[in-house]
């Protein structure tokens, strides 16, 4: 049998799976329904809070979740069931976990991949004055949604 690692995966069905993975994490862990972007939100930068999770194995790449600091604080308060004003450094941990769960939920939706793809520990970056140059050479999937009216962008940079 031809090893799975030599088979080029059909990625055409991945964007809706990524969107589904994002929606499920927000619905289950934050009790929040994401909304599709409206015309005005597409022109806005998602913000200066970026959480990144690496994938290695049969699927190599980087999943990033980008949002504003206000959205990150709100995500944290919804996860913990606390007032947004009481959120402190837990925001790094919380949004890192959201990215981790989105990445895990996405890869678990790809048949046969779960066993052959590992996730890294999340990394969180703050500040918007940077460009991310992932050495991805097999495409990029991006999902933009509105979280409580503010844009969040989840992107998967894919390496071969």
């Amino acid at each position, binding site marked *: 049998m031809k090893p799975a690692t030599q088979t080029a995966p059909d990625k055409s069905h991945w964007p809706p799976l990524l969107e589904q993975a994002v929606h*499920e*994490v927000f619905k*289950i*862990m934050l009790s929040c329904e994401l909304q599709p972007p409206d015309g005005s939100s597409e022109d806005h930068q998602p913000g200066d809070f970026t959480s990144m999770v690496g994938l290695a194995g049969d699927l190599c790449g980087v999943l990033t979740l980008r949002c504003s600091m206000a959205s990150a604080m709100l995500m*944290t308060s919804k*996860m*913990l*069931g606390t007032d947004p004003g009481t959120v402190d450094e*837990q925001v790094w*941990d*919380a949004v*890192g*976990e959201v990215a*981790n*769960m989105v*990445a*895990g*939920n996405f890869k*678990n939706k790809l048949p046969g991949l*779960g*066993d052959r793809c590992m*996730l890294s*520990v999340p990394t969180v970056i703050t500040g918007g004055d940077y460009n991310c140059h992932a050495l991805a050479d097999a495409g990029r999937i991006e999902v933009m949604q509105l979280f409580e009216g503010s844009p969040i962008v989840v992107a998967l940079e894919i390496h071969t």
Partner: protein
Amino acid sequence: MKKICALIVDDSSVMRKIVERSLRQAGIELSEVREAGNGAEALSAVNQGGVDLVLCDINMPVMDGIEFLKQMQTVELAKGVPVVMITTEGNEAHVVQALSVGARGYIRKPFTSDQVKQHVIPVLEGKS
């Protein structure tokens, strides 16, 4: 069901709080909650005795959940204490590996309190 002492093992403090809240929402009465950020800390916690249930992540620094399960079997005070894994790594190989080294249940993140109830109550009642 009697009140229990739960040990929650996850390198994310936010996730530990979410797991604790899910246990309470599932109607499980907690007399005590202990937290550990990795398997090594969890071993120290079970060594103190009195733990009735362990909920454990797999991917953690220092000592992961699978190694914790293996080492826990050598701890006298931990014998018979059920362990339920709660992890993003929900693929079949991880499930089989965790069950083969003593896990009694498996919950995949993201999870609801209903799923926690569904997996944890039978374990506490000795039905799983």
